[in-house]
């Protein structure tokens, strides 16, 4: 198809490059440098979508990121991207886009029927109906509303593209590369400070590309090009196109999105977009201004466009937006659109200005109507004619509207800033309370003349250089063409029939705003929420000020009295994938592996996540088809002979210093001051509120040297807590902490043959006989010919057991060597499942019991709370509710019918009582199948449990519809006297 609306010459498109693309299935051609919107307009495509609520035909409205109408689904398959602004989508060969939000076809949308019902669909109508009969809301009304609402569709497939993030640092971030941004960047760059210049467009220049004004006797766009080249040549300047600074965060940190491959047919495995965190000393917002419309009847018809957009299409893209264009304006810029278009050979039918006195000369052939108002438009899928107050009809296929310009103050109000009303330009300009280090220059600051924009950019940069104590570079003043920009506020046309739209995307009309006011929604926030004004994907960029003005008129107040309109980040919508960056799928979080991981992998381990760690869950041997077979075997083998378990993941903290003993004694509830060198002790760490924070074994390796172990889950928290105690509570204690979790690979060797196995490795000068190295002994020894080793005779399994730690580099080898040495005993590696079975058999608590809601008394460890010293948590652990006699106690459970299986999470109810909260006596925390006892066993908290041994209660599990009778037993299922571990 030919580009019938492409102007014969001019523009910044690359005519040598013809790109084929598809829209709604039809093939078209465009040029390099086009956006999808400009290419569609070049091909005469006027209607590009349907509106949100009434499904009215809509066309391209603007030429920038403020576009409310032309939202399309871009690309296909898993890369389908809904709600993409055609005005921002850079054209590439093979681009495939579709219109959205209709049922049937774009031209014949079945939901267009909504438009006929519009009198009944006024603002907030849904709050007043759909209530009867009650079930109909969820079954009928809501699904229908949901199906009709929404805009584009997600592909429902995982996003196949990759994203990345990064950090940048600069002295000055210049946001927007229009005239003021370029001028500011040039000044700052020449002064030698570190500058980042970012612009959302793929072409530097901003309005210089859209208009025809010259700078320094060059065409504006040529000057922008030259400036870009100069900036790019400076080492201290980074120019970033396709980069939207979307948010201003605390202390000069900005968020920006750089679209790296969106303009290419394929991302080729490279990041599609990069999220930059930009750390700045100062930022200059040079984000320009956005044009707004005027509300008049049927002002939403395709072909009704913003005048500045029409001008940009003609100048930058060499596209005529119509064969005959009329202008409706309340300010001078509408007239410049007319003259630019006329100069390009696009006929101007009429200029309708709401003001009385004509400011400029009209192009030849154009009718001029001063004090005029457009009261209606006609045309099925595109405007064909407009009607003026007084009844005059003008034929035209494009109506360019300018209601004035609103500075893009968005970033200035991302923190506390409130824009203030400036009557001279009938717009909000940045108010006080701006983000730290932020300045605003140019049109974003309400300065519209090109010459003044250039000067403002420079002056703002000079001001910052001065704050830095730097001299500005020599002033080679920029000179520019001038154009008039005076405005006389005019908001909406009262004459005429038909709806006058304010927020095009959310279909909010003047009537809706008035109705909201009539119903008492008079604060701006109420108006927004009730009418949905400004809540669409454009955050009301072309609508908010207009809506506010209409609300002000309705309430008979001035605009400043009525309120202001602020913006939340992001400036324009940002893909969630980009904000997540690489952190998705398997790379959501890092993986921690023990040094023995590779050995385990080779030996049949199935791994399980334990926080960030991967731990061997069980080691399947040939012929084992169910995890229980492996687990049972590991438990039996360990208890019968010897088993080996990688316990590297436990937190390990070296505590040294003259006051190390005193320090340890204060953070544990039980006594550690008198722990002899060469001994370990099990300890409880409480929070200051008296509940248990963590537990573990701490060994005294020397007079002033302890090594504390923590649970895997709490390693980081406990270290932080210890540092808090050390630095904030007892800064005078001579004690130092360092984590050695990573330094040591640690394995448990458990079972009657543990010592025999270990003796084979231990170097001869160390005696680990039971006499020399009894239960709870520890020491620094060496194994395998001098490898430094920490040995602890501690037991989690209840067997004769040791934990051996060697430097991590030997960790993988250690597992192999232990197995080799254990071969004669039939040693088995065991995983966390078997570990769990054995600890339940011994009644040891882990995370399910130490869940932050339980006290030492609840755990049956009340005796571990010393009354002879101060320790963290001591005072509050004595509170009434924590020392009550009828509190929870950790006990063991067995099913009365041993064929039945216990379930963790069941609640205990006395037999014969109803299953209610009031009768709830506790819950089952952990369960396991004990291959030794041949029954399911469990641990749990139940009221007064320690005095109810032998009682039977119901373990109620209504959730899984299985409630069974269980017996309360001692939590020490195996070897309650502890003979084995002392063997």
């Amino acid at each position, binding site marked *: 198809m030919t580009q019938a609306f492409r102007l014969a010459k001019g523009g910044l498109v690359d005519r040598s490059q013809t790109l084929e693309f598809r829209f709604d299935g039809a093939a078209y051609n465009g040029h390099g440098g086009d956006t999808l919107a400009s290419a569609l307009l070049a091909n005469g495509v006027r209607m590009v979508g349907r509106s949100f609520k009434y499904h009215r035909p809509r066309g391209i409205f603007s030429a920038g990121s403020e576009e409310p109408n032309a939202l399309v689904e871009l690309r296909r398959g898993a890369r389908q991207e809904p709600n993409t602004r055609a005005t921002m989508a850079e054209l590439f060969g093979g681009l495939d886009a579709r219109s959205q939000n209709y049922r049937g076809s774009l031209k014949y949308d079945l939901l267009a029927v909504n438009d006929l019902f519009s009198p009944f669909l006024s603002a907030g109508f849904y709050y007043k109906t759909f209530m009867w009969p009650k079930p109909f809301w969820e079954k009928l009304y809501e699904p229908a509303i949901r199906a009709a609402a929404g805009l584009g569709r997600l592909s429902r497939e995982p996003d196949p593209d990759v994203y*990345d*993030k*990064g*950090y*940048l*640092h600069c002295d000055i971030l210049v946001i927007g590369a229009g005239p003021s941004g370029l001028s500011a960047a040039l000044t700052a760059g020449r002064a030698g400070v*570190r500058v980042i210049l970012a612009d959302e467009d793929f072409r530097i220049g901003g309005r210089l590309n859209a208009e025809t004004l010259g700078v320094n006797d060059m065409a504006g766009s040529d000057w922008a090009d030259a400036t870009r080249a100069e900036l790019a040549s400076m080492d201290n300047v980074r120019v970033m196109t396709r980069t939207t600074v979307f948010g201003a965060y605390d202390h000069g940190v900005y968020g920006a999105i750089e679209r790296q491959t969106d303009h290419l047919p394929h991302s080729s495995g*490279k*990041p599609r977009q*990069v999220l930059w*965190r930009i*750390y700045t000393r100062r930022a200059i917002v040079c984000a320009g201004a956005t044009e707004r419309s005027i509300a008049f009847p049927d002002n939403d018809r395709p072909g009704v466009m913003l005048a500045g957009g029409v001008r940009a299409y003609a100048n930058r893209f060499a596209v005529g937006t119509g064969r005959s264009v009329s202008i409706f304006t309340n300010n001078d810029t509408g007239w410049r659109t007319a003259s630019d278009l006329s100069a390009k050979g696009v006929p101007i039918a009429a200029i309708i200005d709401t003001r009385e006195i004509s400011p400029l000369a009209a192009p030849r052939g154009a009718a001029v109507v001063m004090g005029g108002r457009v009261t209606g438009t006609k045309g099925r899928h595109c405007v064909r004619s407009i009607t003026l107050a007084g009844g005059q009809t003008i034929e035209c296929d494009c109506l360019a509207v300018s209601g004035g310009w609103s500075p893009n103050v968005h970033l200035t109000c991302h923190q506390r800033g409130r824009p203030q009303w400036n009557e001279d330009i009938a717009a909000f300009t940045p108010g006080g309370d701006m983000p730290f280090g932020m300045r605003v220059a140019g049109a974003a600051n309400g300065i519209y003349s090109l010459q003044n924009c250039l000067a403002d950019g420079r002056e703002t940069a000079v001001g910052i250089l001065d704050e830095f104590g730097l001299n500005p570079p020599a002033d080679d003043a920029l000179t520019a063409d001038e154009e008039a920009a005076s405005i006389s506020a005019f908001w909406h046309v009262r004459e005429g029939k038909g709806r006058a739209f304010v927020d095009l995307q959310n279909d909010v009309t003047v009537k809706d705003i008035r109705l909201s006011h009539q119903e008492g929604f008079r604060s701006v926030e109420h108006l927004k929420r009730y009418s949905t004004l400004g809540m669409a994907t454009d955050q009301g960029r072309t609508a908010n000020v207009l809506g506010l003005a209409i609300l002000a008129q309705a309430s008979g107040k001035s605009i400043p009295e009525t309120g202001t309109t602020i913006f939340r980040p992001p400036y324009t919508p940002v893909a969630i994938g980009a904000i997540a960056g*690489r*952190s998705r799928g398997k790379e959501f*979080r*890092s*993986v*921690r*592996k*023990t*040094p023995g991981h590779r050995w385990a992998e080779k030996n049949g381990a199935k791994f399980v996540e334990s926080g*960030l*760690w991967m731990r061997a869950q069980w080691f399947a041997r040939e012929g084992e088809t169910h995890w229980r077979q492996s687990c049972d075997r590991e438990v039996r083998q360990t208890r019968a002979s010897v088993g080996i378990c990688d316990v*590297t993941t436990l937190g390990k903290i*070296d505590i*040294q*210093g003259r006051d190390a003993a005193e320090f340890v004694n204060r953070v544990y509830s039980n006594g550690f001051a008198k722990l002899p060198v060469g001994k370990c002790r099990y300890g409880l760490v409480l929070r200051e509120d008296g509940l248990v924070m963590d537990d573990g074994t701490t060994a005294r390796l020397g007079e002033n040297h302890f090594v504390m172990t923590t649970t895997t889950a709490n390693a980081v928290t406990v270290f932080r807590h210890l540092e808090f105690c050390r630095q904030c509570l007892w800064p005078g204690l*001579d004690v*130092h902490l*360092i*984590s*050695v*979790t*990573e*330094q*040591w*690979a640690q394995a448990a060797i458990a079972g009657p043959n543990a010592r025999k196995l270990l003796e*084979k*490795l231990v*170097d*001869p000068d160390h005696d680990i006989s039971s006499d020399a190295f009894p239960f709870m002994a520890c020491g620094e020894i*060496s*194994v*395998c*010919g*001098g*490898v*430094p080793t920490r040995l602890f005779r501690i037991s989690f399994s209840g067997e004769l057991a040791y934990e051996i730690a*060697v*430097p*991590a*580099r*030997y*960790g*993988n*080898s*250690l597992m192999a*060597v232990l197995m*080799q*040495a254990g071969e004669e005993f039939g040693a088995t590696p065991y995983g966390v499942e078997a570990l769990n079975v054995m600890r339940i058999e011994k009644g040891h608590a882990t995370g399910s019991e130490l869940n932050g809601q339980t006290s030492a008394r609840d755990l049956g460890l009340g005796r571990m709370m010393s009354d002879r010293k101060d320790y963290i948590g001591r005072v509050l652990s004595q509170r009434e509710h924590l020392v009550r006699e009828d509190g929870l106690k950790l006990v063991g459970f067995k099913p009365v019918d041993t064929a039945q299986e216990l379930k963790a999470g069941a609640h205990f109810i006395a037999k014969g009582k109803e299953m209610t909260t009031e009768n709830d006596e506790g819950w089952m925390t952990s369960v396991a199948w004990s291959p030794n006892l041949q029954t399911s066993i469990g641990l749990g908290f139940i009221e007064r449990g320690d005095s109810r041994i032998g009682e039977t209660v119901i373990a109620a599990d209504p959730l899984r519809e299985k409630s069974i009778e269980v017996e309360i037993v001692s939590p020490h299922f195996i070897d309650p006297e502890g003979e084995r571990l002392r063997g």
Partner: protein
Amino acid sequence: MAEFDLIAESPLNGLQRAFEGVTVEEVSGRAIVSVAFSDRAGLEQAVRTSLDLTLPFVGNTARVETRDLLILSLQSDQIFVLFPQTGHRPDLEIAEIAGDQGLVTDQSDGWALLRVSGPGSRTALERICMLDLHPDIFTVGAVARTVMEHLGVIIHRDGEQSFLLMSARSSAESFAHAVVTSVENVI
């Protein structure tokens, strides 16, 4: 006991990747010993005596070329000393230097070391390192502990275009992946 030998393995198996303008390689064979101290002046004296060196302040490093020894000052009361690993007890070697002025802990096995070097290294690290690595700011010799891709990392600039990175051994593979991905994303 020669019957059972423990074999040492490096955290990253000697990883080495060369890209256009950037090389990523594991650094192994370095002993790392932390020295905690309560009396800075005391340790300073000890270090000056035995190494002829002034103790660097936090964020700085010092080198003893003759012994291939590098001191990273990371906390106000703690330094790391890096030097060639020769025996089983590098901590004792440093204890000799520190005397009773420092509490030593062997950290040699706790860390994976990567060197990222070449003209593109800063651009690659920009993707994961939140510190400003501009050569005027993070000068040659500077060291800092920070976080990259959720992982704690010690970064030291040991040349105009060369960075030594240290991260926990257990997550070494994730860390190396993060670094390599950063390079791949910018070349």
